[in-house]
């Protein structure tokens, strides 16, 4: 597949933006500035970036409790996101959602979701609506290896396949359901084999290789756009931090952690870009510096934005 230099650098920038956003969120959380729970996406950046690079604002995604990466890759603005982490009135959800529920319908983000596996059938509903309206847009459901054991996985993929809906199921297999390793929560190694039960293609790719994700997602998205139905794309990856910030990660084998950190998706991609001589180190540094400035601005926006009035709790429960 041909991919231009601009697109390749754009993938890099998105991954860097996700990484820096997460590192900053972690720092603010540990210093007590942010409340709630924080589930960081570090290590999985290539998946959100590679998948969403195939989408437009008119395509939809459903995300997970580990959703910041998906939102950024789909076009979410980091200042509105950071404001939401601060619970401020200027946040995407006016402070009602927080980290686990960031959504922006204008850019096709139907929301992160606090219930593991709940997003999959909602994406199927979005795909139903897109087909109903006669558009060629698609819906993407992000979920993890552990969510593939929920009934929603079965019902969603079965519904999507029997109704031939334009949806792509992206399984981010990071090896753990909270603390439980994949080997203890399912007997299969590749979640993609489950696609066979639904008569749809199932593919496994290296989720730390952004170009592999991009190219395989492109094929799946293109199938969906052409009315050829759903695909299950599994991306193997590694959650570099714990399930949430504060998780002591006693269940991780230090050897595994070391091995996967050496395969960091951003580091690997940098090396590839430099080896291909598509870019100089100075250019990469410049991208990082730019992103750093935008994250700092986002923090300042979040911090200085007004608090919502407590009386706001009574609004928006029902549409008039």
């Amino acid at each position, binding site marked *: 597949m041909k991919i231009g230099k601009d697109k390749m650098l754009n993938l890099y920038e998105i991954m860097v933006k996700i990484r820096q956003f997460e590192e900053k969120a972690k720092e603010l959380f540990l210093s007590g500035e942010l409340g709630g729970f924080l589930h960081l996406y570090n290590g999985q950046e290539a998946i959100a970036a590679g998948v969403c690079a195939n989408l437009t604002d008119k395509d939809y995604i459903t995300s997970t409790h580990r959703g910041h990466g998906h939102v950024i890759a789909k076009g979410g603005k980091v200042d509105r996101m950071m404001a939401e982490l601060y619970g401020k009135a200027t946040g995407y959800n006016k402070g009602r959602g927080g980290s686990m529920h960031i959504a922006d319908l204008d850019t096709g983000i139907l929301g992160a979701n606090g219930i593991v596996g709940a997003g999959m059938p909602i994406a199927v*509903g979005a795909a139903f609506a897109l087909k109903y309206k006669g558009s060629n847009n698609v819906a993407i459901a992000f979920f993890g290896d552990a969510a593939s054991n929920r009934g*929603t996985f079965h*019902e969603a993929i079965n519904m999507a396949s029997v109704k031939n809906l334009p949806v792509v199921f992206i399984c981010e297999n990071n090896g753990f359901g909270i603390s439980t390793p994949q080997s203890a929560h399912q007997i299969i190694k590749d979640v993609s084999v489950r696609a066979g039960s639904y008569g749809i293609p199932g593919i496994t790719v290296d989720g730390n290789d952004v170009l592999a994700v991009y190219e395989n997602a492109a094929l799946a998205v293109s199938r969906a756009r052409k009315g050829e139905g759903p695909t299950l794309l599994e991306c193997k990856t590694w959650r570099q931090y714990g399930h949430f910030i504060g998780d002591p990660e006693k269940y991780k084998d230090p050897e595994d952690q070391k091995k996967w950190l050496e395969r960091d998706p951003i580091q690997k991609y940098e090396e590839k870009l430099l080896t291909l001589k598509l870019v100089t180190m100075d250019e990469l540094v410049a991208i990082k510096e730019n992103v750093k400035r935008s994250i700092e601005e986002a923090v300042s926006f979040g911090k200085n934005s007004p608090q919502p009035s407590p009386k706001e709790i009574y609004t*928006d429960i029902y*549409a008039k």
Partner: protein
Amino acid sequence: MKKITYLQAMREAVRLEMIRDTNVFIAGQDVGVMGSSFGQTAKLLQEFGPQRVVDTPISETATVSLAVGAAALGLRPLITMEFMDFMAVCMDEIINQAAKMRYMLGGKTKIPMVIETLCGGGSSAGAQHSQCLEALFTHIPGLKTITASTPADAKGLMASAIRDDNPVIFIGHRGLLANSGEVPEGEYIIPLGKADIKRSGSDVTIVTWSAMVQKSLAAAELLAKEGIGVEVIDLRSLIPLDKECFLNSMGKTGRLVIVHEAVGTGGFGAEIAAIACDEGFDLLDAPIKRVTAPFTPVPFNSNMEKEYLVNEDKIFQAVKSLYE
């Protein structure tokens, strides 16, 4: 006006709304060729085609979520759950997704969807095909929960539910489907949140809904012969709740009896009683009585089910006890 059944009235409302708005579609188990188990969607497939009358696998979870996702993108899904008991298998999708999406998203989306379901015992259908579970839904902010006791109400409330921009649980009653009554032809709308005084009286207020309206009216007839004038208020819409209607009535009667088919413990009648005490204590001349099912599952054996269900006599006795 013409006389049609409760079932026909529900179907007529759906059909008219589908003609009126092409964003309205139906999805659910057996809604197509079969026209649903009881005929709620009969012949709609022929009229509107498989794109708008969508047979689904037995997948309550995916069906509710399909509605949530489609509604977020601007469609107006009506999904069917043949027996209310089955809604227990898709509670996350109703409680955590449909009901909360608008609020969590800061009001930036609407989820206009209807779950049409049937409740009710009396036919030896057993513990998993007979329950009245409305209280599970009235507890959840973001949901509207409505019932209908007559064919006309079924039509007018169903039309309103489909036009509403929120998730609405429309609870029909299996025992009422064959009842017929006069129903206005053409477009007919009853706003949600408006109770209806089904019988006027000045001595006792009965607050009830769904199939217990008919039972209460029958009891009221017997009580009239004893010189007790009963006002029967059909709440129709549980959420939003028309509390003014029953508080006003209590101002007149000073006595309140609450009648529902569901189990009493944690039932919606307890909420009515609490509101009556909080906001109408000075109006009351007697203790509040509730007539409900006992705290047991619904039994199969017909004699046992008779023991379980509320009937005219139990209502009659409860009202009489206020005068002892």
